[in-house]
């Protein structure tokens, strides 16, 4: 998958339509103004990378898009329609799946139930009896397909290594993603092999063109491999936007540093 030739690197696999639009979204926690007006658009089938310092508000933005936090101001549009995402469930109903930075699996539940958490297969209609056999079987198949090794799908998730847990958390969202997938530092604390596995998984999904993806990561090499476009979040705003094929590691680093410097100057001027 990863070594496949990509015939048309210059144009991302998009059809020009917007999967998601964020307009002027603001968010504060008490006195802390985290997002000061975020504007961004995500094209259908696009992979958008989001970078920024720790505490820049990347996770907060993801949590707004996934229905976990309400925004204070601004609008969210999905396929051109204004939507209110009042809960994780309602975001999910709009086709948004998320891998959170803290990737919390439930330690007391086995792997297969974590994989299906929120998407349980049930029988007997309203009785909602779990179809454990089917979930086990599908979990085994799916994890085999994507080459995630776990001792057993029946192992409790606190028996797994950090990397395995992370792979399960990513797999959970990727498996069911239909429209929009949000990945908040999916590769943090992962070994090289596991990172490769997740990158391939996401690239695979992206190449299908069905799913639009926002991915947060600190590793530029990963981002350059995965993404069509990169955004930099600084001081609560998007400060830099570049198509991946138009920029380089050096330019991006330079842009980040210079806008950081500009911010510092603005702050010290305001202070003076």
């Amino acid at each position, binding site marked *: 998958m990863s070594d496949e030739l990509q015939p048309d690197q210059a144009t991302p696999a998009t059809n020009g339509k917007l999967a998601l639009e964020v307009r002027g979204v603001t968010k504060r926690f008490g006195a802390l103004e985290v997002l000061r007006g975020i504007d961004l658009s995500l094209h259908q089938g696009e992979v958008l990378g989001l970078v920024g310092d720790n505490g820049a508000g990347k996770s907060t933005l993801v949590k707004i898009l996934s229905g976990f936090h309400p925004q204070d101001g601004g609008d969210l549009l999905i396929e051109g329609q204004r939507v209110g995402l009042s809960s994780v469930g309602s975001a999910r109903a709009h086709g948004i799946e998320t891998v959170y930075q803290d990737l919390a699996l439930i330690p*007391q539940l086995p792997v297969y139930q974590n994989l299906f*958490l929120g998407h349980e297969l049930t029988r007997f209609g309203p009785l909602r009896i*779990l179809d454990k056999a089917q979930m086990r079987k599908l979990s085994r198949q799916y994890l085999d397909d994507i080459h995630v090794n776990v001792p057993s799908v*029946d192992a409790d998730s606190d028996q797994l290594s950090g990397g395995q847990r992370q792979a399960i958390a990513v797999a959970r969202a990727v498996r069911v993603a239909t429209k929009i997938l949000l990945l908040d530092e999916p590769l943090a604390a992962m070994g090289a092999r596991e990172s490769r596995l997740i990158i391939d998984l996401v690239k695979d999904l992206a190449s299908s063109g069905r799913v639009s993806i926002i991915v947060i990561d600190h590793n530029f090499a990963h981002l350059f491999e995965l993404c069509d476009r990169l955004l930099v979040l600084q001081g609560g705003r998007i400060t830099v936007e570049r198509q991946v094929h138009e920029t380089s590691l050096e330019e991006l680093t330079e842009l980040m540093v210079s806008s950081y410097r500009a911010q510092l100057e603005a702050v010290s001027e305001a202070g003076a």
Partner: protein
Amino acid sequence: MQSAAPTPAPAPAAIPPPGQDRVGGPSLAARIARAFLYQRELTPLVLLIGVFVVFAIDSGSSFTSTLSIAAAAGYAGPIGAIAVSQVLLLVLAEIDLSAGQVFLLTPWVEYWLHTGGVPVVPAILLALVVAASVGAINGMITVFLNVPSFVTTLATNFILFGVVLVGSNDASASPIPLSGQSGFASSVMGNSNWAEIIWVLVITIILGLLLTRTRFGVRIIATGGHIVGAAEAGVPIRRVKIWAFVLASTVAGLVGIVDAVKYGTLDPGQTGIDYILYAVGACVIGGTALTGGRGTVYGAFIGALLLGLLEDGLTVAGISTNDFYIYVGAVIIFAMALNVQFDRVVARSKARR
């Protein structure tokens, strides 16, 4: 407990945690040790059988007589009903201290409605609606005001006790509708000696299946095990908690009515806090920790039976029932210590992997 996968899968789930199965299979002793580690109901079950055997040898037929066993069941019934429904809350890392008082209040409501002219069946159903509403209020206050349920339900416990005292004018009530009558309906509702414990057994099985086999059960475990993780996965954590409070309260009310029919009178001065204390004891004896995420409904039922047998056995043996409390305390501490020890062994065996 474990349902086998129909596929000839490489990792059958006979003995948890199945991830640790080695080629050749472990020795019998290792299997037994593992069964006790992972099936927490086994220890109280062995304890229960042990207590039964000791009393049977000690007191003979006066202990094993139907009358004596029925008395044991009579002690175990109310504790069991409250304990098995409390497990759902304990797994959520919540508690309902008012459940015992709901157990006592619900038959009062039925009685008041009936003496006010409402026929028996609607009176019972309306009383159950009241019990459910108390649960809903407990749940909503806890969830929306973000108050620990320990405090919320401590308060409702006092309020409900006051409601009974005020509503009854401090006078006891009898006869309770259906009580002392013959016929199928009144037997089922509590007149038969065994009705109450059978109700509790049926409720235990239903709640046991609910916790281990349904989506609601997974949501309870997920919410209690890791609340942020559950919320992120889209589990409606608030709704799950409120429904668990409603369920626990309704079960307490239902068996409260059966208990009132059985005894035929209601005493307004009786306090519910005793019931909940025994019930939590039964949960702990049964293998449920109060840390959330884990718990066993069946274990709580066994724990209640154990307390019932203990109370009855000591009475029959002619030992002062005052000793009962010392035994209860000792068993709870023993069970808790064992559970902590088991948890440690499990954690260590996981860490070694």
